[in-house]
């Protein structure tokens, strides 16, 4: 029985092919091609109807890649996986899953611009997540504005928020201004002086790179106004392999407080050197990367009492859930500063898209300007495209980096006097 069936099938196929041989081959191929194209198109349309395209461009190589690997990309991954696990974003037409398109901008502003352009014109992304770092965000802002994409920045700290928000109606800032970061440190030191915990002498060093220079320049007049005396004021090149002359010089100036506007490699290096040379001050501050889990991991108990840029309130239920999810999805912990803000901006985007119910970028941008959003770091409300409530200074206390100073976020812990190494 089966043999007959097979024989029949083979015969039918042979006849079918003979028919095709007789037919005009070209016509056949043409119609076959059309049928194939038609079905692919239908598949494509069906696909497009089910997904929303989100673009993401940030460094995966180059000088800022290490920072982006800790603060930026894990949150992209976390957000997309959480949203898609829920079934996708809820539009008026139904739930749509996120189709993520990633690009490496190699820490080069030219590449960031090219990637955003490509996402807008070729990939036809519905929304594009903001780039990493102040420089790359500023470079890409004109392109975001040209194509009408909202640019909710999270790792962009600048004093030019006012002019930038005027020029680019779709840009939003969340992490704060350079001046407020320097000012918060000055406030803490001023309070400690007033409480009699430390004297007025401050040794200040900075890395000779963009953010370090900006912070130092902002800090000098603010420190002076706060009644602090800068007894040591030096900068060093990025990538310096030996920081001991600087620590030695700072120690020789007999400071009561040590402030370093530093980048990750020198944040680690200066702290290690200060420990070895016994630079004991009751206030010790290093800037970027103090909030990295690796800092607490490297220095253990010695990290306690060290102040740094940023901070969060890690004890809220939202933050605890966020840390757990981050660890689960990425296999590594979030940092104690910008990580949560990066994720929060994605929550803002998500709630705005769902609030509008469509991928209308103009409507979503307007929605972001007009509403309050519930995020892992608390409620975010933009005033003139700026979030005015952010953490400025944190301190390692008991193995965690807690926010000790903010411009309006609750849960700041009291500043502790640092013990000797």
């Amino acid at each position, binding site marked *: 029985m089966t043999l007959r069936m097979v024989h029949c099938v083979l015969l039918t196929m042979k006849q079918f092919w003979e028919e095709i041989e007789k037919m005009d081959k070209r016509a056949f191929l043409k119609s076959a091609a059309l049928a194939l194209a038609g079905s692919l198109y239908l598949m494509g349309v069906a696909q497009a109807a089910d997904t929303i395209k989100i673009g993401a461009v940030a460094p*995966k*190589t*180059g*000088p800022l*890649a*290490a920072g*982006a*690997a*800790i603060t930026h990309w894990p949150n992209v991954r976390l957000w997309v996986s959480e949203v898609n696990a829920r079934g996708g974003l809820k539009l008026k037409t139904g739930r749509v899953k996120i189709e993520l398109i990633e690009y490496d901008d190699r820490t080069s502003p030219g590449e960031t611009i090219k990637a955003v352009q490509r996402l807008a014109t070729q990939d036809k992304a519905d929304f594009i997540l903001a780039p990493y770092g102040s420089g790359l965000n500023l470079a890409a802002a004109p392109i975001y504005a040209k194509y009408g994409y909202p640019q909710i920045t999270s790792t962009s700290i600048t004093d030019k928020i006012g002019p930038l928000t005027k020029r680019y109606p779709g840009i939003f800032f969340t992490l704060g201004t350079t001046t407020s970061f320097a000012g918060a440190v000055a406030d803490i030191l001023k309070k400690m002086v007033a409480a009699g915990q430390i004297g007025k002498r401050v040794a200040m*060093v900075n890395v*000779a790179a963009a953010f370090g220079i900006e912070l130092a320049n902002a800090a000098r007049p603010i420190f002076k106004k706060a009644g602090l005396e800068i007894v040591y004021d*030096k*900068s*060093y*090149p990025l*990538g*310096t*392999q*030996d920081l*001991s*002359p*600087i620590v*030695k*010089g700072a120690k020789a100036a007999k400071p009561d407080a040590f402030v370093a506007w530093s980048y*990750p*490699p020198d944040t*680690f*290096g200066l702290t*290690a*050197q200060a*420990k*070895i*040379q*016994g630079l004991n001050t009751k206030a010790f501050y290093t800037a970027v*990367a103090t909030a*990295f889990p*690796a800092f607490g991991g*490297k*220095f*253990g108990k010695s990290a306690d009492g060290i102040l740094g840029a940023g901070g969060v309130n890690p004890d809220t239920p939202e933050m605890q859930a966020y840390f757990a999810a981050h660890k689960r999805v990425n296999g590594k912990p979030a940092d104690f500063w910008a990580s949560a803000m990066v994720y929060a901006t994605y929550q803002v985007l998500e709630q705005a898209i769902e609030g509008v119910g469509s991928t209308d970028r103009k409507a979503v941008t307007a929605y972001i300007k007009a509403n309050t959003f519930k995020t892992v770091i608390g409620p975010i409300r933009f005033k003139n495209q700026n979030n005015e409530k952010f953490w400025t200074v944190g301190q390692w206390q008991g193995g965690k980096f807690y926010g000790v100073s903010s411009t309006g976020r609750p849960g700041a812990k009291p500043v502790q006097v640092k013990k000797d190494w």
Partner: protein
Amino acid sequence: MDFIITGLLLGGAYALIAVGLQLQYGVARIMNLANGEMLVAGAFGAFWVFTAHQLSPFLSVLVTVPIGFALNWAIYRYLMQPLVKRARNHGQLEVDSILSTFGLAFIFVGVMVAMFGGEYFTYEYLARPFRILGEPYALNRLVAFAFSVVVCICLYICLNRTRAGLTIRAVAVNPASAQLVGIDVPRVSAFAFAMGGALAAAGGASLSTFLTFDAFVGVIFTLKALVIVIMGGVTDTRGAILTAFILGLAETFVATYVDPGLTLAAAYVLFMLVLLFRPQGIFGQRTS
């Protein structure tokens, strides 16, 4: 006065960075722009050995040095030797090897990012103060300095007191003439190139005890090594070692008595002066 000790410690670190490139450029005539990446790979190896297995990072050298040697030997044999064979003159080989190793550097960075991720790597090893004449110095830097001295002495003995070293130095001075006296130049070059890579890996392991690394910092070390090798005189290993110490002392002097922000500027001013007034390098021989 203690800037001398600090300067010597820094010089020891610089010697480890430079000596590998000196062998590769001075003997094998390959300007290996991927040298820094070998160093970072050695640092990653040490980090892994220390954090995953709680062993001294210096033990990682037992594994990374042979692997570095084999890997660099293969790179020379299969990627560089064809360039050497077809180069009609020294200049063409320089250009070819620069372009080729430049690409190799990116390949290495990509592999390291895939294996270790893009974040910073740092650990605490012997981060205790050790007092010399009453001043505290980092114990890990002192140990790295001792390691560097041992390596440099071994290298000196190998190169200047053994026959194998004699053949290596002969190839460095004049490969064409070396060929004429019966030295197997391709083989010696491959050996020197491999040795250079192995030394870079060992240097990386040593430096990782007190520096913070990520997959992308290799280029900084390549640049430093390049400056030291050219300043010291390309063909002589002793030149590279001595120049490394001179540079370490100079930079520390500037950082201590002038301004820490001028250390890089001082290093490059020295470099430019050497290029202007003694282009064959401080210890180099003027070629006839």
